């Protein structure tokens, strides 16, 4: 099976920054769910935005960055406009900020559809309402006419998911999709996302700082530290991680029924920043 996304030796340097924010990151993505885990500042979100080609001020270099039949390194902005939102899309962290506060939710969802499909307003609205049903919103007609400040966080994020999956993209990047939500609705939103991703056969990149969440919802996990990839693992093999950083992260997780001794503190080593040995 051809990979959806193939990234080789991706480096990203922001304009004016002395050091690259991301260095030599390589991975491929098939029809699977890939998690990227790392602490804040590790460059995980930057990778997602670089794939979407949203970083205007950054210099992106890579040996290869191929999305299906598109070379993302060479694609013009005009080509990207046709790809973004149609063939790849991204779910952002906090619906409080990622939805336009002065436009109705429904309008924002159907805009995603109307940008890429030639259709009437009524048709786009029908599709949007259908999609709202698919993200388990009970009264889609009503929610369609609500403003973002009138819906809860969980509902807002479901609106976001509806907006981003409406065009049936092949690749969805979910950038911390549940970190801004109440703990009680996190699981529900994730299950909705997971269900849709499976049904539609979408390749998913889940960016998160939450190891447990990624372990539960992804097939494979990339661990990033200080802009580098330190380890790539199958989710079920996470406990067999070799890299000391990953092991340190795992050890720092509290467990119900586990030992009540103080959790170990992650000890960092300077050598982790060096290039990753072949795993």
């Amino acid at each position, binding site marked *: 099976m051809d990979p959806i996304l193939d990234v080789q030796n991706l480096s990203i340097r922001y304009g004016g920054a002395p050091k690259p924010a991301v260095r030599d990151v390589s991975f491929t993505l098939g029809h699977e769910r890939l998690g990227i885990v790392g602490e804040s500042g590790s460059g995980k979100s930057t990778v997602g935005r670089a794939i979407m080609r*949203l970083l205007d001020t950054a210099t992106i270099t890579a040996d290869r960055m191929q999305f299906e039949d598109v070379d993302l390194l060479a694609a013009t902005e005009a080509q990207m406009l046709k790809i973004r939102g149609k063939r790849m899309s991204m779910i952002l962290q906090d619906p409080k900020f990622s939805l336009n*506060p002065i436009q109705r939710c429904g309008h924002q969802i159907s805009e995603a559809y109307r940008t890429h499909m030639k259709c009437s307003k009524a048709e786009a609205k029908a599709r949007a309402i259908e999609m709202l049903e698919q993200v388990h919103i009970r009264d889609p007609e009503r929610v369609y006419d609500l403003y973002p400040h009138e819906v809860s966080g969980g509902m807002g994020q479901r609106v976001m998911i509806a907006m981003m999956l409406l065009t049936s993209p092949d690749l969805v990047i979910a950038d911390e999709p549940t970190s801004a939500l109440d703990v009680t609705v996190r699981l529900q939103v994730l299950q909705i996302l997971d269900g849709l991703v499976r049904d539609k056969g979408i390749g998913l990149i889940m960016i998160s700082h939450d190891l447990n969440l990624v372990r539960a919802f992804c097939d494979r996990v990339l661990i990033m530290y200080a802009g580098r990839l330190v380890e790539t693992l199958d989710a079920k093999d996470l406990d067999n991680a070799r890299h000391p950083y990953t092991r340190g992260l795992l050890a720092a997780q509290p467990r119900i029924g586990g030992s009540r001794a103080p959790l170990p503190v992650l000890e960092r080593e300077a050598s982790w920043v060096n290039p990753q040995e072949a795993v």
Partner: protein
Amino acid sequence: MPAGKLRLNSLAGSALSILVTLFGLLVLTFVIGRMMPADPVRAIVGEDATREVYENVYRQLGFDKPLWQQFMLYMRDVLTLNFGTSIRTGQPILQDIARVLPATIELATFAIIIGAGVGVPLGVIAAVNKDRWPDQVIRIISLLGNSMPIFWTGMIALLIFYAGLGWVGGSGRMSQFYIGMVPERTNFLLIDSVLAGQWDVFWSAINHIILPALLLGYSSAAFITRMTRSFMLDQINQEYITTARVKGLSRRQTIWRHAFGNIRVQLVTIVALAYGALLEGAVLIETVFAWPGFGQYLTSNLLIGDMNAVMTCVLIVGVIFIGLNILSDILYRVFDPRTR
């Protein structure tokens, strides 16, 4: 619903605060009017009036009464719209102002259309190109507009475009030739001349208004540009802009469909503020262009020491300012769904 109650409360609150501000306006104009060292009675009766006449007027004006009673009288006069007569024209002051105000409003409106029409797009362009050359050029242009003494620029512009090149009409609202030809209905010359079907007067008026309006428009464009730029910069880094780009919208669509909608509310306030500031610019520019408007009326009364007329003018400007504030408040509620 608590939200409804809150809204009522805030409406009552803003009504109250408007009343308080209006009252403050009265106190301020009263205080300024009374603290002048020049003798207001002398200004009315003239230098060689007899002592008897002088004291008569003195009592008529209520100067023999204690201050608080004088203030009450002042309040009564204002509430009954009785502002007295102008020394210079012998007409009721309010009537005078009603006659001259349209000329200024015409000028200011023309200017704000230019100012907002130029300033808003320039501000957006500057923000989108932050720190690149279009931003720098626009920055210099707008700082220059903020720095020019408008009365001087007015004279230089008259020298070049009227005396030198002859492209535009000179002083006044229209050529001397046409004065008195148009029946005065609204006192807005552009409207009156169209109503009367006198197109040559209309063109003469356009020819005369264009230069002062451009200058005033430039100075308000300078202000509007700076503000638009900073509002826009705030929006451009918001996450919903990223969302719009992720959806596949182009930069231009993102800016105008999403970011611009979010600064509309702030822009309305700024444009209202700029419109008020134009009244100030009009005082100077009307003197240069011999524009028979509110500013000239104020200045000429000031120079002859007719405090009554001056304070009425100041009061009216204050009321116009408050009115603009209320207007922008209302528009705020209309444009921003979160305040509904």
